[in-house]
C-alpha cells in the first residue's frame, strides 16, 4: 500500500483508466451483439423451442461464475505468498461477481429445466457441484462480512478461497460416483450442445465472449473503486478523521 502524500499541489482529478473504457465499450457492443444473435440470429431449436434460447444466458453465466472462482483461488494464493492487499481486493471482488453470475446461471437453468425436464432443479453432478460452489462462496462472503475488513480477514478468506476451490472437483467426483453406484431416477440428458447447427454455436461463442468481457469490465471497475476507497480511508485515518 502506498501512502497518500499530502502536498500543496492539487491531486490529479480521477479519470477512468484506458482499460476500463475499453472493456466498457467492448462489453456493451459484445453484449448487444450477443443478445441479438441469441434471440434473433440463432435458429429455433426443433425439440425445445424458445426455451433453448436460455442456454445462451445459462452457460455463459455459469462459465463466468467458475472463472471468477478460479480468480479467487489464484489471488488467494497470491495474497498468502506476497501479503499484498491488491490480491485480497481482487479475491473479494471476484467472489462477489462470481456469486452474482452463478445465481443468474442457476436461476436461468431452473427456468429452462422446468419446461424441458419437468423439474426446477436436478441434483445431478453438475447441478450439485454448482450449488456447492454457490454455497462455498456465499459463505466466503459471509465470513468476510462477519470478521470485518483487515489483515486477519484477508488471511482467513484466502484459506477458505483455496480450500473451497480444491473441494469443487471432489464434489463433482463424489456426486458422479454416487449416481453411478446408487441407481437414481434418470433424467432426460439432452445432448443438444454437441450436434448444434453452426449459427447456434456461433451465437453461443459470442455470448460466452461477451459475458467474459463484461466480467473483466466489472472486475476492473470494482478493483479500481476499492483502491480509491482504500486510499481515501488511509488518508482519513492518517489525518485522524475516521
Amino acid at each position, binding site marked *: 500500500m502506498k501512502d497518500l502524500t499530502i502536498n500543496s499541489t492539487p491531486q490529479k482529478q480521477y479519470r477512468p483508466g484506458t482499460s476500463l473504457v475499453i472493456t466498457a465499450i467492448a462489453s456493451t457492443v459484445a453484449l448487444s451483439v450477443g443478445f441479438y444473435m441469441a434471440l434473433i440470429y440463432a435458429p429455433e431449436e426443433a425439440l425445445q423451442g424458445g426455451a433453448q434460447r436460455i442456454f445462451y444466458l445459462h452457460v455463459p453465466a455459469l462459465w463466468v461464475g467458475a472463472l471468477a472462482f478460479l480468480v479467487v483461488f489464484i489471488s488467494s494464493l497470491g495474497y498468502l505468498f506476497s501479503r499484498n492487499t491488491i490480491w485480497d481486493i481482487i479475491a473479494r471482488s471476484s467472489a462477489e461477481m462470481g456469486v452474482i453470475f452463478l445465481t443468474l446461471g442457476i436461476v436461468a437453468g431452473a427456468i429452462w429445466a422446468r419446461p424441458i425436464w419437468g423439474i426446477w432443479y436436478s441434483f445431478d453432478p453438475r447441478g450439485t457441484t454448482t450449488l456447492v460452489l454457490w454455497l462455498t462462496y456465499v459463505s466466503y462472503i459471509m465470513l468476510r462480512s462477519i470478521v470485518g*475488513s*483487515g489483515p486477519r480477514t484477508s488471511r482467513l478468506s484466502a484459506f477458505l478461497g483455496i480450500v473451497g476451490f480444491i473441494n469443487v472437483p471432489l464434489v463433482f467426483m463424489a456426486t458422479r460416483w454416487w449416481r453411478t453406484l446408487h441407481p437414481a431416477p434418470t433424467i432426460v440428458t439432452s445432448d443438444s450442445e454437441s450436434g448444434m447447427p453452426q449459427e447456434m454455436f456461433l451465437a453461443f461463442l459470442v455470448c460466452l465472449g461477451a459475458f467474459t468481457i463484461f466480467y473483466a469490465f466489472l472486475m476492473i471497475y470494482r478493483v479500481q473503486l476499492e483502491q480509491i476507497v*482504500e486510499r481515501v480511508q488511509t488518508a482519513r485515518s492518517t489525518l485522524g478523521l475516521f
Partner: protein
Amino acid sequence: MDGTNLTAINLGKKFHQHQFVLRHLDLHVKPNQRVGIFGPNGAGKTTLLKLMTGLFRPTEGTIEIDGISPFSGAEGARIRSSLGFVSHQTYLYNEMTVLENLDLHGKLHGIKERRTRIITSLENVGMTDHMNRPVGQLSRGMQQRIALARSTLHEPELIVFDEPDTGLDDFAREKLQGFMQTGLSERTMIITTHNLELGMAVTDRWIILLNGVIAYDIDSVATTNEDFSYTYKQIMSSTP
C-alpha cells in the same frame, strides 16, 4: 545474565482495513533498561507489547530483539523463548493444577530442570503452598501471581508486563512491586500500567503513548516524579 535490547523501526499494526492502531513507531530499548509505557485506553499499549512478544505480526515495519525478528524461523523461536509476557489474561488452564500448568509451559520452553525451576519461581511469588490446586479455584490475585511465575519460569532476558496490577488488592500490588524491583534485576523490562505510582517506582524510562504514537519519552534521571505526573495529566486531559 545480560539483558537483551529491543529495536522497533517504523512499526505499524492494523486490525481493520483502514485503521492503524500503531503507526510509524520507532523505539530502542537498551539492555537492562526498565521502560514504563503509559497512556489512555486504546492508545495501543497492549498492541505494542503483543508485537514485542511475537503474538502479533507487524503490518508494517520491523521489530527485533537482539537483532533477530521473533518471526524468523528457528532463530525466532529461540528469541521468543527468551521473552516473558505477563498480561492481564493469565493464559492458564483453569482445569489444570498450578503445577501442571507450569510443567506444560516448562516443557514447551524445553527447560531441563523443571522441578527446581518451578519451585523457585513459585517461591518468588509465594505460592508454593497452592501447587496442587486447580488454577480455577484460586483467587484472581493468586492466579496473577501464578501467571507471573509462569512467565519467569524460563528465565527470560526480556520481560514484558501488560497491566500486571489488574485485579490485585493493595497488598498483592506491593508484593508485585517488590518482586519487580528486586526479583528481576539484570533484565530488560517493559511495563504498561494505569497506576502511575507503581510504574514510576519500578522503571527508569518513561514513555507516554497516545493514538498509536510516542508522545513523550524521557529518562527518569532527567525529570522528577512530579514533573512527569504533571505532563502525563496534561496529555491525558488533552485527549477527548
